[in-house]
């Protein structure tokens, strides 16, 4: 009997903890809660932005970092207010959507080539050499093609072990997009995508998985996200861009990479940029939303809150980017974003003036 009483009491306590009745509701009434889902890459930055935004305006934003693919799916199913994606939606994907979807670039990321060599010198890579290494055609570090661009570095006679991402990722998408642009062979045999059929190498899960393998395996080479490489002080290389300059990956050089004429819908790949001082392996990440916001019975207040938030994201929020090692949007991208946001409408009438 006594045991039963105890059991009931404990169960009630547990239930009370799981479902805080009333309190949650009262809190939600204070302001709108916007729902977003998608890319994991900008998640640390978005968390910062949305936290600050909540303090300023009281609007809560709940962003689930479930991956770009999931973000696109959820937006397609209209279960979120906005999605986040590291790879812009293809024409086919857009055609499958129930209504017109818009892309707003929010920040920039880049991919850094890192490796494990005695002394970890800063290497210089030409696009062709990089493609040949990941193609499995250059197999040793003292290959003449590597030596000729790195004449002052003593490259060891070691086997090159390629490490790539095993999980589907925007980082892989940017990297393979770059290799597809600079190597005809890569474009035909492998191609670009969040996951590809790698000709050689082994896979690590996430930036940390790749970096972990590289740290452990002498003679290995791989690619990680710029912010991750900087935070963990990984050795990095300079890469020759289209103009012929060897560019070090930095927040400045990736921002410069985006300083090119952008198409009106901002769906553009920044890899192998024309910009003479731009780092060639970088790309935008986007927030995606529907142009017509009146669906699934959403209120005008809610949709107005959404465009106000995004307006803030591409303007005032940008000052938080660099401290968190994310690239700041260049002026041209902000202007494109403004035009696109002004086209977002509720029952046909624009939400922003």
């Amino acid at each position, binding site marked *: 009997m006594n045991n039963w009483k105890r059991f009931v009491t404990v169960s009630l306590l547990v239930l009370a903890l799981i479902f805080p009745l009333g309190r949650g509701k009262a809190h939600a009434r204070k302001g709108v809660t916007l729902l977003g889902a998608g890319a994991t890459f900008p998640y640390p930055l978005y968390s910062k932005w949305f936290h600050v935004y909540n303090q300023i305006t009281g609007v809560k934003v709940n962003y689930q970092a479930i991956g770009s693919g*999931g973000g696109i799916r959820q937006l397609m199913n209209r279960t979120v207010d906005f999605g986040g994606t590291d790879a812009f939606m293809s024409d086919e994907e857009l055609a499958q959507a129930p209504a017109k979807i818009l892309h707003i670039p929010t920040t920039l990321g880049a991919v850094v080539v890192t490796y494990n060599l005695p002394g970890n010198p800063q290497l210089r890579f030409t696009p062709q050499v990089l493609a040949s290494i990941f193609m499995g055609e250059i197999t040793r570090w003292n290959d003449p093609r590597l030596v000729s661009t790195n004449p002052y570095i003593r490259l060891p006679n070691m086997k090159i072990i390629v490490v790539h991402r095993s999980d*589907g990722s925007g980082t892989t998408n940017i990297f393979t997009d770059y290799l597809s642009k600079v190597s005809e062979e890569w474009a035909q045999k492998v191609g670009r995508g969040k996951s590809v059929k790698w000709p050689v190498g082994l896979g690590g899960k996430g930036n940390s998985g790749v970096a972990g393998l590289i740290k452990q395996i002498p003679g290995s080479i791989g690619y990680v996200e710029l912010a991750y490489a900087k935070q963990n002080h990984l050795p990095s290389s300079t890469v020759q861009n289209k103009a012929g300059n060897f560019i070090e990956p930095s927040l400045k050089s990736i921002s410069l990479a985006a300083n090119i004429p952008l198409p009106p819908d901002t769906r553009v790949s920044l890899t192998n940029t024309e910009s003479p001082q731009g780092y060639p392996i970088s790309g935008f990440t986007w927030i995606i939303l529907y142009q017509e916001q009146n669906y699934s019975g959403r209120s005008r207040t809610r949709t107005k809150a959404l465009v106000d938030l995004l307006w803030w994201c591409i303007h005032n929020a940008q000052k938080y980017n660099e401290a968190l090692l994310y690239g700041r949007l260049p002026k041209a991208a902000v202007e494109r974003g403004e035009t696109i946001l002004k086209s977002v409408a509720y029952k046909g009438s624009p939400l922003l003036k």
Partner: protein
Amino acid sequence: MESAKTDKIFEILTRSLGSLVLATAMGGFITLTILSWPSIKAFGPSFLWSTRWDPVQGQFGALPFIVGTLATSFLALFISTPFSLGTSLFLAEYSPPKIGNAVAFLVELLAAIPSVIYGLWGIFFLVPLVRKMEMAFNLPPYGVGGFTASLILAIMILPYATSVIREVISLVPQELREGAYALGATRWEVMRYVVLPYARSGILAGTVLALGRALGETMAITMVIGNRNELLRSIFEPTNTMASVIANEFTEATSSVYLSSLVEIGLVLFVITLVVNILARMVTERLKMEKGE
């Protein structure tokens, strides 16, 4: 009267709970089949023997993952069975109860360790060790790969097999043992000719339970197998398993054929696990019959 009513209620309750479990398994199978339909339609049975896994071209085949899963699981079983058998014989036959209980507790504790911890331990301890070995044998020094994954699996499945086998061995009737001793058998002979033959169906059942665990293990494997989506040529090469490729690629699989191919791998894993268990059940029954139960 009152008690008859409660009896009836209780019967209905247990019956519905039982059918609920069955319905869940069936529901899982049906859902997997529906969700993998686009890929079943696109590739047909060739999905099972194609080795090409190319998300860019939209071509998918599951053979590298099926081979990877079976190779690592069976190798793990091969490595771990002598240990689980030895441990359970020691626990049931040799050790004094106090030590036996402590050891049994520790072995069962192995089952309570989350698989991500095994993975971390693998990365920081086992992988460098295997790499040293590979360097000594002049193999590429990956460290990660099918062999490392099998080693981790062997440790992870050890407690499952051990606890079942120990249980079964302790169920061998004392009279049989005493009879054998009375005939002048040595301890080894008792074990060899009485205990093991009597318990063999149970030993097999424990081994299969362990195998089921190995087939589905995901996290620890992903961390040490090297995640290479190619057919295994040598056990030291990096490869991938069915569970691990799903965990790796599911979140970013956007095209519908890609997504449903991953689900179909799940379906294949489901069926393989089912088949392995059914086969084992058949063998167990057969052994029981031979024994004349």
